């Protein structure tokens, strides 16, 4: 039995706003020193899958640099290992970009054929979870399935966010509804984890017609397969989060600042290490004035101020008198003296000037440009922005990447503004 894992890492992740401006969603930092894709990649190697293709399209540079030859995951191998696959031009009509997940796999069919695995495991590169794929593969064989889909129970009121499966007594899938508005389809949501028999995958992906294209697994391929193939659901119980929105990204990070949250993902498990490319950084340095509680702080941080319920990536500097609360701060950001940062996600290399207040006030006006994405009171600052000292910036504010001090309209930026 040979298994090839295909990680879908090409999506733009637009709901994460500026965090995915310069990088694909799987490359967004998470839990301090990790990136989102580390969880899926580590699941692969911890499950004994050493043949992994990562399909990229949107802004792959950060992802390419992070994965490299796969050293941190021991995926720099003679046989197998990690393959980063970019869209390319060929002789056929493949002149367009990938149009969806199934299309991306279809355009790499030659690669799959060359590898000739028995099973192809299709994974999403943008979920946070720890899962051993081996029991699922064993289940797939046991059932004699053509396709097995990883599912988990979600509350009925959230079923409109997921692809919902209806199954019979044997867990065979009888119906599939993509983000149904009705609440009567049951609680089994697709996790975007598919185990395919390779021959079936190749066949079904090749069957696309202009009327019934094969662009997306959830929309096109799976509904078509349910009627003619043996499609089973595999129930997964455990920690699994889709950090696709600003709110869920923030919440999932903040959960790590509580003992219960940390226990649920347990990054300390020696039998299930989450590997990442660690930068070489010195230990965390805490000045004598530092006050840090309920937080996660990565190597290379220097803290001289106050940090509460926050997650700090490597190399963040918190100046004396500064206060960071309920925030996620990404690599090498500098928080000036006396600055107050609350309920804010700050991307890398940002400068927050002395005395500036971020996430200030109780005014919850949703962001005017993207009210659907920023409406829960979280302010987001893009990479490389330079925020002058003495500003007061409200909530649901979006500060785009690389904004200079001179590009700010004044000293007060009300809730819901975009800079």
């Amino acid at each position, binding site marked *: 039995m040979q298994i090839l894992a295909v990680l879908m890492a090409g999506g733009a992740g637009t709901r994460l706003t500026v965090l995915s401006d310069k990088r694909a969603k799987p490359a967004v930092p998470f*839990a*301090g*020193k990790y990136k989102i894709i580390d969880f899926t990649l580590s699941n692969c190697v911890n499950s004994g899958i050493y043949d992994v293709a990562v399909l990229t399209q949107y802004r792959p540079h950060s992802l390419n640099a992070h994965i490299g030859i796969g050293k*941190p995951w021991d995926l720099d191998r003679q046989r197998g290992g990690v393959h980063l696959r970019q869209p390319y031009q060929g002789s056929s009509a493949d002149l367009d970009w990938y149009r969806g997940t199934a299309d991306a796999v279809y355009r790499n069919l030659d690669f799959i054929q060359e590898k000739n695995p028995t099973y192809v495991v299709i994974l999403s590169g943008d979920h946070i979870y720890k899962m051993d794929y081996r029991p699922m593969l064993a289940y797939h064989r046991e059932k004699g399935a053509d396709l097995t889909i990883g599912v988990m129970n979600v509350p009925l009121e959230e079923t409109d966010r997921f692809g919902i499966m209806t199954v019979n007594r044997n867990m065979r899938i009888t119906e599939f509804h993509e983000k149904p508005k009705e609440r009567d389809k049951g609680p089994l949501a697709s996790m975007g984890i598919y185990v395919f028999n390779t021959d079936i995958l190749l066949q079904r992906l090749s069957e696309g017609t202009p009327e019934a294209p094969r662009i997306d697994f959830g929309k096109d391929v799976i509904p078509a397969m349910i009627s003619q193939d043996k499609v089973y659901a595999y129930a997964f119980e455990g920690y699994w989060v889709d950090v696709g929105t600003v709110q869920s990204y923030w919440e999932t990070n903040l959960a*790590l600042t509580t*003992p219960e949250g*940390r226990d649920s993902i347990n*990054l*300390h498990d020696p039998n299930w*290490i*989450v*590997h*990442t490319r*660690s930068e*070489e950084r*010195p*230990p*965390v*340095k*805490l*000045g*004598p*004035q*530092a*006050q*840090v*509680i*309920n*937080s*996660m*702080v*990565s*190597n*290379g941080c*220097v803290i001289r101020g106050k940090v509460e319920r926050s*997650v*700090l990536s490597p190399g963040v500097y918190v100046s004396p008198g500064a206060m960071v609360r309920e925030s996620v701060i990404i690599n090498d950001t500098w928080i000036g003296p006396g600055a107050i940062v609350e309920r804010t996600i700050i991307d890398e290399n940002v400068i927050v000037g002395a005395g500036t207040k971020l996430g200030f006030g109780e005014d919850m006006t949703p962001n005017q440009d993207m009210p659907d994405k920023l409406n829960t009171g979280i302010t987001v600052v893009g990479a490389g922005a330079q925020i002058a000292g003495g500003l007061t910036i409200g909530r649901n504010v979006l500060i785009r990447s690389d904004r200079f001090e001179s590009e700010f309209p004044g000293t007060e930026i009300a809730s819901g503004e975009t800079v």
Partner: protein
Amino acid sequence: MNSLVMIMAGGASEDLSVLTKVRAEPAIPFGGKYRIVDFPLSNCVNSDLFNVAVLTQYMPRSLNDHIGVGKPWDLDRSQGGVRLFQPYLGPGQSGWQRGTADAVRHNIYFLEEQRVDTVLILAGDHIYKMDYRPMLNFHQQMQADVTLAVRRVSPFETHRFGIVSVEGNNRVTGFKEKPRRSRETLASMGIYVFKADALREVLADQKLNDFGRDILPAILRTHKICAYTFEGYWADVGTLQAYWESNMALLAETPALDLYDPEWVIHTRSEEQPPVEIGPEAWVGGNLLSNGCVIEGVVERSVLSPGVRVSAGAVVRDSVIMNDTVIAPNAKVERSIIDKEVFVGEGAEICYGVDNIPNRLYPERLNTGLSVVGKRARIPMGIKIGHNVLINPGVTETDFQTDFVVSGETV
């Protein structure tokens, strides 16, 4: 100039007591996530010296694991790279190495193979950041046979070093190994640049086994020896007090040894550990904390290696705590050096009381109030342990006869 670096990592360093009972000194953790040998190794690669041999003899396992193929230092190379040399037997070979010079002599065949014209000999147990290139240039300009790196030390410390006398033109004219009293205060740092030919020549005399003790005094008249003055931070952490002080010095607002310098990164083999987790009751002012630490209690003015757990209600002050040690609830640790994987039981107190009776077995090693706990020791709950106490590696709860270990005792 074609240089080879040889790092001396074989000594037993008995002054470090229980820390070197389980490993060679260069493999002792330092500054949280580093090990002592990371400093000379990183200096080498940051000085563009990629041909490095590490000479081991005493307890090398930890060092072998740590250096491996040299990946963290980019020393896993097809040309040059890092090599770990162990003592070996052979025709006409006696086996064990009797000193630093003897260690090099054992590997002289390697020197021939490498066809280098300059050999840089380093100690594996010093903490410093130094670009070796200016020293190598100086050596060449002076057309010296041997160049020693030297620095000024306080007159009270001359007995710990080799002290050199220097003439105006940087020529070394005298050398005294660890003199009790000395008018001179220029100390040798244990960094030697040899012309390869000169090195071969001086090693031919089989009676000379140590660079500082034997070779330098013997060749003073016959060879041109120059002194190169180094001004930067340099610490010989060969005693418990010096080791503790050098760790504590990292806690200063602007430490003399800057680990955060992007131009001179100290590379190490990092374990894959999550970020530091700090709990609701924690107090963590003035520390160096490494990845994987979980802090629920109070930690002040301390250096913690990866994976240390300080439970709620526990207090750690002025201490160096190494990897994966667990401090149970309400335990109190002050002025201590605690090795890896130690368990300090609930409510135990280390460095209890205000007396300062030197350790009875090793008064010359342990007399400044520090208590030292060896690797994987288990400290029983509720016990009180005084100052200058030595707890050997691997002792368990049953090895403690009383619930109060008075100052100066050894368990």
